[in-house]
């Protein structure tokens, strides 16, 4: 079982790396077959990582959601599937290259760094709502990630058009309007999902504050999350009121995504991720 676990994990991560490499090749060469192979790799990687989750669940008898390898694998599965779905239309298929390239980097980190957590037993999740909370959060993060990458694609395409550079990139990119529409849709789905995730966590913590401590609402992660809710509320409002569009919206979304990354990774690195932070300070 352990061998099967390793095979599924490495195969899944590496298939995502290959998918990223193929999508970049497509961007460079424009051969639609290459992108199709990349999509197959995503499906293969997703299947392998799902198998990894199943094996880990069977091996340890717990829901595998808490380690770094679990988090990265879940992120790969959700983002990969979501991105193939978003780019299923021909006119935005090139966008997949912008999505899969950073996912390839995540796959590489997963295989090279996170593998050490693979054979550690996942923490026992004491409350069922946590599973829902984590699932929703990852879906929201995946949508924000896609929005961030769409913004990057928009800025890249815009810069080429502004400076009259017609390269292979401009010829294959979706139109600015399509990128703007995709970005707006992603925000429209990601924002309510993010709010729902926080609301669900809030209700759960309010009803049963014991696992998080009495001052959970002062934890940096919670406070920053609420700042992000306000930030994205402004961005979504300005976009749909017609006041913010194109490059400015893209810069804003990229900034928001960077803050989310800090929220997720930065706080962990700084040791500020726990909910007991203020209780411990006191």
């Amino acid at each position, binding site marked *: 079982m352990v061998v099967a676990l390793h095979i599924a994990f490495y195969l899944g991560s590496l298939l995502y790396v290959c998918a990223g490499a193929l999508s970049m090749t497509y961007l460079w060469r424009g051969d639609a077959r290459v992108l199709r192979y990349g999509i197959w790799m995503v499906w293969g990687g997703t299947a392998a990582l799902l198998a990894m989750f199943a094996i880990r669940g069977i091996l340890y008898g717990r829901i595998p959601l808490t380690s770094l390898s679990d988090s990265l694998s879940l992120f790969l599965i959700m983002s990969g599937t979501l991105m193939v779905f978003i780019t299923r239309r021909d006119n935005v298929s090139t966008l997949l290259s912008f999505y899969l390239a950073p996912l390839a980097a995540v796959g590489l980190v997963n295989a090279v760094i996170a593998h050490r957590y693979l054979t550690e037993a996942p923490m026992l999740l004491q409350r069922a709502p946590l599973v829902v909370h984590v699932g929703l959060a990852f879906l929201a993060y995946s949508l924000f990630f896609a929005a961030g990458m769409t913004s990057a694609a928009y800025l890249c395409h815009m810069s080429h058009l502004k400076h009259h550079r017609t390269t*292979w990139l401009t010829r294959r990119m979706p*139109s600015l309007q399509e990128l703007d529409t995709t970005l707006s849709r992603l925000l429209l789905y990601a924002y309510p999902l993010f709010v729902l995730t926080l609301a669900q966590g809030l209700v759960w913590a309010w009803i049963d504050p014991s696992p998080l401590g009495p001052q959970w609402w002062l934890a940096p992660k919670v406070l920053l999350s609420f700042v992000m809710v306000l930030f994205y509320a402004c961005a979504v409002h300005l976009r749909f009121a017609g006041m913010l569009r*194109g490059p400015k919206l893209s810069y804003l979304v990229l900034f928001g995504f960077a803050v989310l990354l800090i929220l997720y990774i930065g706080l962990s690195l700084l040791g500020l991720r726990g909910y007991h932070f203020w209780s411990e300070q006191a």
Partner: protein
Amino acid sequence: MSLVAVGLSHHTSPVETRERLGFPAHTLPGALLQLSKRLDKAGTVILSTCNRVEIYAHYAGEAESARNEIRAFLSEWHKLPVEEFKDALYEHEGRDAVGHLFRVASGLDSLVIGETQILGQVHDAYIAAQTEQTADKVIHNLFQSAFTVAKQIRSQTAVGEGKVSVSSVAVDLAASIFGDLTGKAVMVIGSGEMGELTLKSLVTHGVKSVIVVNRHPERAQALAAQYNGEALPFETLSDHLHRADIIISTTAAPRTILHADHFHHALKSRQQAPLLVIDIAVPRDVDADVGELDNVYLYNIDDLEQVVNENIEVRRREIEQCLAIAERGVDQFMHWMGSLIVAPTITSMAKELEIIRERETQKTLASLPDLTEKQRYEIEYLTKRIVNNILKRPMTEIKHEVGHHDPGTVVHLVKRLFGIEESM
């Protein structure tokens, strides 16, 4: 059996010659039937466009006589002495003819490399031949292979990417910004020829709403009427700027007429929706500062020409790869054609061996009268297996060889080896 391509194109002849040798659509059925009859019901296709006139024929006899017949047909049909167009003709046979068609269908032989219109024209020529039943099995496979190769070249290389005329580059830019142009509005300022050409291209690609602004109201109305558009006086230009998604400026004004201030107001009214400004005028109509504004994409004539040149260069760089794909297609087709030529020989070879097997088996069985039915069957079965195994390798090798060498030589050798009648 020979496959020939005889024709003339923009590479070898002036437009006057091509005009005289062209086949208008209504004359094509008659021409196809007459040509096919002349070539003893050979498979024939006539491709006639403004840039080329070509005849493809699959003929039962020698290539030389097919070429002579085609020349004579062209002369008779167009009532022109052969001497008048002989020098403009190119003639290909076998592999060269196949390669030529593949290059033509892929747009590699076109005036504008990589253009796609020719593929439609080749398709029409093939359909016309099919309708008149002058496309035989070989012609059918030849043209289907040409379409496959053309599609491969288009999808696997960048030869068709990027437009190579100023007006089509403008359409490309509009598509890069807006995607689908349906429902977009275009404003034309002035009445330059290039501006009208660009407007025409945009309307062809789905732009519905046309606004024409001109200092001369009658000119504005004349152009607007052509596209069911709206004519506006020049003085109201800045009030209507926000209504356009694409602005084509082509006036003869001695100094710039549109500045950043005009666009600030327009963008606000448009809720920051992007705006493409194509300034084809010399001297320029639009202040260069406008290009610095967010959501405004300004291109002047030099910028457009630079894009055209870059696109031409991209297409040139792809030619080598395109030719390699075409060459692979030729290999596959020639292999198929070779197998078609040797198929009767392979059948005869198998028949010959079957006759020997049958004769020798019967002799042996006659000398062994005590054998049971089952034993007789086993012996029969054994001999069949031996013959099949003996035939397997030669059959594979023959099919392989005809793809790389002259099928006639291979067929002749096989016939000699197995003592097959020459008439077969």
